[in-house]
Structures are given as C-alpha cells and as structure tokens.
C-alpha cells in the first residue's frame, strides 16, 4: 500500500508530540474528516506501540532466562500448588520428563542458543575502564571523546559509549579504548563487531592480550561459535588473571 510521505512524517511527529499548536489542530481536523488519514494514524500508533511491546517482551524473555539460572527461593508456608501436584503428579511427571528432554536438546544441540546465552550472561562482566580524569590536570582539561566515552561506559550507558569510543579510536590508537569498545559492543548485543575489535587488539597490540582473548571467547560464545570459544578459552586457561574463569567455563561447555 502506497502512503503519502508528508502524511507519515506529520503523523510520526504528532505521535512524538513534536508538532506546534497550529499543526496539531490541522492533524486533528484531518483525523476527524478523512477516514484514510485516520486509518494511517491508527496503524502508525500501533507500530509504535508494537515496538514498545516488542522491547518489553524481549525483556520478559531475558528475565525468564535469568530466573531459570537462579536458585529456588523457599517460602515460610507451602503454596497451594502442592495439592495440585499431589493430585496430578503422574501427568506432571510426564510433562516434566518431556520438558527435560526438550531442554537437553536446546542446551546441547549445535543450535544451543538458550544454554549459551545463559552462560554468556553468567560470565560476561564488562571490563573495568581506567575511568575519567585520574589526575588533576586531566580533570580540568576539556573533555575528549575518550573521556566522554569512559564516562558513558562507567555509567553503564553502553549504547552511548559505543558511538563515543568509535570517535575516540580515530583520535588515538589505544588498546584500552578498543577493549572497552569491544565490551560496549558485547553489552549492546553486537557480538560480531566485538569479535572484530578483540581480534584487532590481538593483531595490532602487545598489551591486554589475555583480556582481549577472554572477551573474544565470550563474543564467540554469544555467536554460538563453539569450537572457537573452546580454542580461545584453552589458550588462556593457564593465565593467572582469567585462567580460573576460563577453566570453569570450559567445564560448563563440556
């Protein structure tokens, strides 16, 4: 279906509350007089709601995944469901067996995304940045892209940090900036870009090699590249900084 570009822009701005009074009046008049315009408005509103709904649904999935990794919480009194269980224990046991088989398939199958995602969430802890303004002269200096990026990164605003670090890299070729950028990519779900960044550190710098390898393994894990994940973890399994974590993760993968 073809739509008028100006109408769509106008309606988007109406939904975003960025029209002036006169424009609002015109839109509302057209909404009351033109059925096609009203239908277009309702569809645009639905799409915006759908975007918000989609985001919240994804967050619900994230919380459910997280919940499945957490220990059971005991209550002071037994909940009513115990009675249901006593009455229907046979079908419940059968359902549980089916669920166990299905879960086993998802965790250990080559497409084992849910299991790997849980491991990623459990092991990914963003690298600590060196912070902003460690000396008085730095504190008084005008903020560089790097300083702004570290500030956003330390606040946990990784989406903003990505853009700022990308600018900072143009200013100077610093492996810590690359490591933090890679981490910000990982935190915002862009594991493919994180992989490129960590590999850059390994080919272009001699510092931060173990750190880069640890996060590279997580970038591989996130993308379900299991052979590469294992290979990199194996390489750092004897290091003093990440060795223990790497060995533990390797065990969990096996």
């Amino acid at each position, binding site marked *: *279906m073809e*739509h008028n570009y100006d109408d*769509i*822009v106008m309606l*988007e701005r109406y939904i975003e509350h960025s029209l002036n009074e006169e424009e609002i009046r015109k839109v509302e008049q057209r909404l009351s007089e033109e059925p096609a315009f009203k239908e277009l408005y309702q*569809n*645009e509103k*639905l*799409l*915006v*709601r*759908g*975007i*918000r*709904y*989609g*985001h*919240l*649904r994804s*967050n*619900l999935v*994230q*919380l*459910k995944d*997280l*919940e499945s990794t*957490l220990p*059971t*919480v*005991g*209550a*002071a*009194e037994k*909940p*009513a*469901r115990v009675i249901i269980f006593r009455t229907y224990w046979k079908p419940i046991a059968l359902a549980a067996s089916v669920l166990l088989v299905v879960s086993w398939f998802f965790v250990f199958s080559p497409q084992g995304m849910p299991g790997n995602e849980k491991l990623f*969430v459990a092991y990914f802890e*963003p690298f600590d940045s060196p912070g902003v303004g460690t000396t008085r002269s730095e504190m008084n200096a005008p903020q560089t892209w790097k300083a702004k990026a570290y500030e*956003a990164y330390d*606040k*946990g*605003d*990784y*989406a*903003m940090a*990505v*853009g*700022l670090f*990308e*600018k900072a890299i143009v200013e100077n070729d610093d492996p810590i900036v690359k490591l933090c950028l890679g981490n910000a990519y990982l*935190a*915002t*779900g*862009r594991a493919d870009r994180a992989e490129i960044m960590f590999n850059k550190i390994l080919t272009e710098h001699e510092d931060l090699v173990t750190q880069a390898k640890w996060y590279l393994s997580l970038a591989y894990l996130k993308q379900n590249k299991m052979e590469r994940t294992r290979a990199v973890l194996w390489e750092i399994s004897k290091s003093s900084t990440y060795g223990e974590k790497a060995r533990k993760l390797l065990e969990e993968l096996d």
Partner: protein
Amino acid sequence: MNDEILVQQIKSGNQRALSQFYESFRSEFLRWIMRDFKCAEDDSKDVFQVAVLIVYDNIQKGKLDHLTSSLKTYLFSVGKNLAHEWGRKAQRNLPFEPEHYIQSMVADDPETGMEEKLDLVYECLKKIGPPCRQLLELFYFNRKTMDEITLALGYKNTDSAKNQKYKCMGRLRKFYEEEFAKQLT
C-alpha cells in the same frame, strides 16, 4: 549500587542493569509474596517479573526521575497491587499472564483485537533486522534523541539517522501490512 545510579543505568538502556535490578530484590520479593499472599512459587515469579517490567517501563517514561521513596518501596507497592490482582484471578481459576500485562502497559486504550495486532508487530520486528530494531527501540522505547542515536549507533550525522529511522519504520510498516493482509485472506 544506589537507587539513583540504578535508575540512570536502566534509563540508558543497559540490559545488565535490568538483570541487576531483578536479582537485587528477587529473594525478598518472592518470599514476601509467597508468605503474605499464599502465592505459589511459579506464579510469584510471574508477578515479580511483571512488577520489575512495570517499574522498568516507568523509569523509561521518566516517572521515577524524582523518586520520593526508595526503589524497593516503589517496586513492592507495584507488586502488592499485582499480587491482589493475582489473588482475584486465582479465585476465579484464571491464569496470571505476564504478556497480557505488557500489552496493557503499551496500550492504555485497548481495543478489540489489539493483542493479536501487537503480536503481529512483534513478529514483524524480528524480520526487520537487529540494526533497525535497535534504532526504533532506542527512539520509541528508551526515548533517546536523534542526536544521541546518531552517536550511539555511529551514523554520519543526525539527518542520516533520521533517514534511517524513516526507512526502518517503512520496512516495519510493509511487513505488517503484508502479514495483516495474509491473515485476512
């Protein structure tokens, strides 16, 4: 981590902060709701997840910018209302469905068939690709400005970001209209 920092981190779209928020209050909340409302453990988890998402959504909307109580008090008061609602549903043998609450969070004037339409948009969002989806979510959910999105996603300038947003909405609209038409035939 204090409430202000946690609110700031959640507002910036940091997914880890959401998990931290969840884990910080989980045990206490679940024990409380299971003890005081006689809520079964699985249902308690559903109630807690919806409560966390309501608080999360209100943070994005800026409703907690000037929080007068602690985040915990706010979360528990949201949880209390939901627990009462769970109780009312349980009496009538109705399930407590988190997806239903999410739908009512985004549509304050629900109309007939809204649930199916939202589910359809949700499916279409999966088709437009992660970069487009991220851009649209940053704008419509996290309420970032186009300047902030330009920086966050590395666009050349604000006009490029705006242009991209328009294209992404266009793709979503096209997929939705196609899928909607399929459902009608």
